[in-house]
């Protein structure tokens, strides 16, 4: 298989790299490679040659040394591989792999400003989230000041001599960017020459907050990361801890979790549908989508008590049990929702104006998606059938199974169709789960959460893509390092590439079709 071939190649070309096999059930990844900073670029090239995609780049501050952790995964052989690089704490320097995997560029910028790691050969190592002029590295364990020469300004695009070139700010306050995202567009007449997103307007330092709170106290924070698809984040965090501590979850809880997550997925896609069409100028589908979304939110309020940010999944099961009202409500909702798709298909999908606005707009080729780490419906629209619920099944998906919607070309129309199809597939999963809902306890009692030392990675399929969490625990009651892998962040990295030479109206359409939610990007 691909992983074994890759490891053979690595062993033959760079014998200094240590390779260890790791139990997947406890750690979340299959192989653990340790290498020195001089070998990492060659290792990344080997990964690229074998068709791996970059999942996440993370840095952990063990006080004597810093450790960079790269996670790679493959569409056909979904066995995650971790690569670790140890750097010295006084002067951390590492070569950048953004020449191989462009998607790692932004991750490295983030590590640079939070930890002070300098990446050589990086095309643009400037501040991503924090403001320029900050004088210490926030995520380090001790307060390490920033040397003067490293305080750089945000990159400013050079002014060109041509008359027609000017800069347009799709500023932080704009009806179309879903949240506070700033795009600096270098325009040539009506066409975009270069688009540069500026992030950080919604940065709340969630990862540092995690280091100061116990595992239980961090639960409400997880949902606030992406408030539109909050159930997936809740589930991801809880399951990561259950994997780390080895807690068993009763089947009834697993089934209810699946139902709740799929309902949340439909709600998130409906919100996306409404706002995307609002960007394109159609005002009514927004309200129809919210009408459907209300039904879902009422259902979820009946069991969890919240409508938007849920704190429902707990370590070992659920917060409370579901009752008959919920089951009846879900069945009524299913019956109603199947009929509503006709409205969306009539009003939007076949509409000739809509098709002309979205066909062949913002095509993401498979290679681009792989090197930038694009996941979720964006990836599936480009023709890659990769869904974490099928590739790495977790929870009740092992018994229920899920149908995967795949597109063809990767343009905005395909992304729209894939998400509509995903809504229908979610309805089918919910039908099966409601029919086979087992009886039994809804929670295993967890008296004291005792996480062993070590690290764990867990990924779920959120509405926007792969939601991943990487927890490093040192045996105490607070996490040592917690890193979220947010899908919108990786999805947006490909935007400068796919928006070269498009009109502004098309840029709005592409941004909408990527389904970004800024809070999870900025964390």
């Amino acid at each position, binding site marked *: 298989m691909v992983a074994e071939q890759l490891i053979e190649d690595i062993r033959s070309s760079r014998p200094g790299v240590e390779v260890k096999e790791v139990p997947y059930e406890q750690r979340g990844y299959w192989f653990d490679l340790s290498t020195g900073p001089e070998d990492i670029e060659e290792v990344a090239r080997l990964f690229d040659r074998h068709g791996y995609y970059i999942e996440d780049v993370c840095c952990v501050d063990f006080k004597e040394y810093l450790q960079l952790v790269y996670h790679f995964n493959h569409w056909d052989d979904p066995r995650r591989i971790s690569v670790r690089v140890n750097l010295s704490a006084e002067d951390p320097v590492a070569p950048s792999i953004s020449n191989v995997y462009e998607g790692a560029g932004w991750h490295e910028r983030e590590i640079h400003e939070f930890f002070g790691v300098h990446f050589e050969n990086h095309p643009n190592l400037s501040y991503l989230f924090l403001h320029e002029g900050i004088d210490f590295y926030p995520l380090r364990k001790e307060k390490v000041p920033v040397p003067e020469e490293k305080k750089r300004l945000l990159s400013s695009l050079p002014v060109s001599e041509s008359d027609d070139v*000017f800069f347009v700010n799709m500023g932080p306050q*704009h*009806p179309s960017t879903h949240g506070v995202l700033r795009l600096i567009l270098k325009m040539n007449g009506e066409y975009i020459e270069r688009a540069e997103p500026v992030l950080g307007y919604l940065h709340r330092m969630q990862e540092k907050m995690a280091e100061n709170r116990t595992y239980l106290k961090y639960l409400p924070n997880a949902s606030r990361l992406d408030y539109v698809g909050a159930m997936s984040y809740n589930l991801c965090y809880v399951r990561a801890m259950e994997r780390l501590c080895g807690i068993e979850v009763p089947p009834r809880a697993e089934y209810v979790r699946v139902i709740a997550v799929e309902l949340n997925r439909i709600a998130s896609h409906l919100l996306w549908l409404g706002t995307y069409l*609002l960007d394109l*100028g*159609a005002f*009514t589908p927004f309200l129809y989508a919210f009408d459907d979304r209300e039904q879902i939110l009422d259902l979820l309020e009946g069991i969890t008590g919240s409508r938007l940010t849920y704190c429902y999944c707990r370590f070992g099961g659920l917060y409370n049990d579901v009752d008959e009202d919920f089951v009846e409500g879900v069945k009524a909702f299913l019956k109603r929702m199947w009929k509503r798709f006709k409205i969306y298909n009539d009003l939007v999908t076949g509409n000739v104006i809509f098709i002309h606005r979205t066909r062949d707009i913002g095509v993401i080729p498979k290679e681009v998606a792989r090197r930038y780490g694009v996941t979720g419906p964006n990836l599936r629209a480009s023709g890659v059938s990769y869904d974490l619920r099928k590739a790495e099944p977790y929870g009740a998906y092992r018994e229920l199974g899920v149908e995967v919607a795949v597109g063809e070309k990767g343009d905005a129309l395909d992304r729209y169709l894939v998400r509509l199809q995903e809504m229908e597939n979610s309805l089918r999963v919910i039908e099966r789960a409601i029919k086979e809902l087992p009886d039994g306890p809804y929670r295993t009692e967890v008296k004291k959460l005792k996480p062993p030392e070590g690290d764990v990675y867990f990924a779920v399929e959120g509405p926007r893509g792969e939601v991943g969490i990487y927890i490093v625990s040192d045996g105490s009651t607070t996490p040592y390092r917690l890193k979220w892998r947010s899908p919108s962040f990786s999805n947006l990295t490909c935007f400068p590439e796919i928006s070269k030479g498009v009109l502004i*109206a*098309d840029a709005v359409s592409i941004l909408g079709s990527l389904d970004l939610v800024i809070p999870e990007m900025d964390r």
Partner: protein
Amino acid sequence: MRALRKAFGDDVVKIGFGLVGAGFVALLVLLLLGLLGMKVWKLFAPYGREAIRALVGLVGVLGFVLFNALLLVWAERKVAGHMQRRIGPKEVGPYGLLQSIADSLKLLGKEILTPRFVDRPLYYLAPIIVFIPVLVAFVVIPFDARLQVRDINVGIVLILAFSSLNVIAILLAGWSSVNKYSLIGGIRSVSQNIAYEIPLLLSLLPVILLAGSLSMKEIVEAQSKAWFVFYQPIAFIIYFICAVAETNRTPFDLPEAESELVAGFHTEYSGMRFAMFFLAEFTNVFIVSAIATTFFLGGYKGPVLPGIIWFFIKSYVLVFIIMWFRWTFPRVRFDQLLNFSWKFLIPLALANLIVTGWCLKL
């Protein structure tokens, strides 16, 4: 009074109110004199009854324009609400009927900002110019067989000629507000208007050929046997699409697209000046529906009810359809919009004209 002066310290409003006020005062004086017994109409004797008729007609038209704008603002919000499964305005007045008045009071009371570096004469002129074609068009629209302010024998040419002033007004508005977004919006609107005026003309020509005259009244009279929509369905559809594009309504409302260019050419206008653009747009909607009714749907002809009621029914049905379009369709991208006009509508309209001419010759 001071509050009124503070709110109305603006030229447009001064001129407008001044004229209307003077007109009303003059009418009151005449009424008074007439009641006192003086034979007031002898004043107008040299000009004949036509003059009185024109004056009364103009005042009536002005009143109708304002009333129509208020009605359409309320109707748009109600229609939008019901199409979106919600009620529109309902608090102000029964069924929200007084909502338009509340909106106009709000607009009147807004601070009228003039940005510092605008081109002053053009900036002040634009809202006034945008209202001129609207008022002129009402002069020749036949509300009933004898309810037309003035039946000019080249009626439709008058309307089309003055509607090009619309283009100038938008260009002035976009240019004089020194703002990247307004300029882009203004330029887009100009090219859109010009592109869609040609098929508009070309789709009205077959009807003129069929009726044999350019006067609006004669065109309505020529539809005594059957409405022209049955003879010229393609021309009706082309005319309707061009009408929606001329009035900058969705799906062709790119110049005012909120999600792309904030607000297009009227970004820098606030308060009463913005209200003028707004009013002009709604009245334009009514005018194009009125022209469509006159040309294709038989104008004021109908069996039982008086002509003017039929005219209003037909016009307002078309206005409802224009609103229906707005709340159903997404926006057309700009180059697709221009492509659609130049490469599709114009050849189709030309072909229709040629076929009509050929059929008439035979």
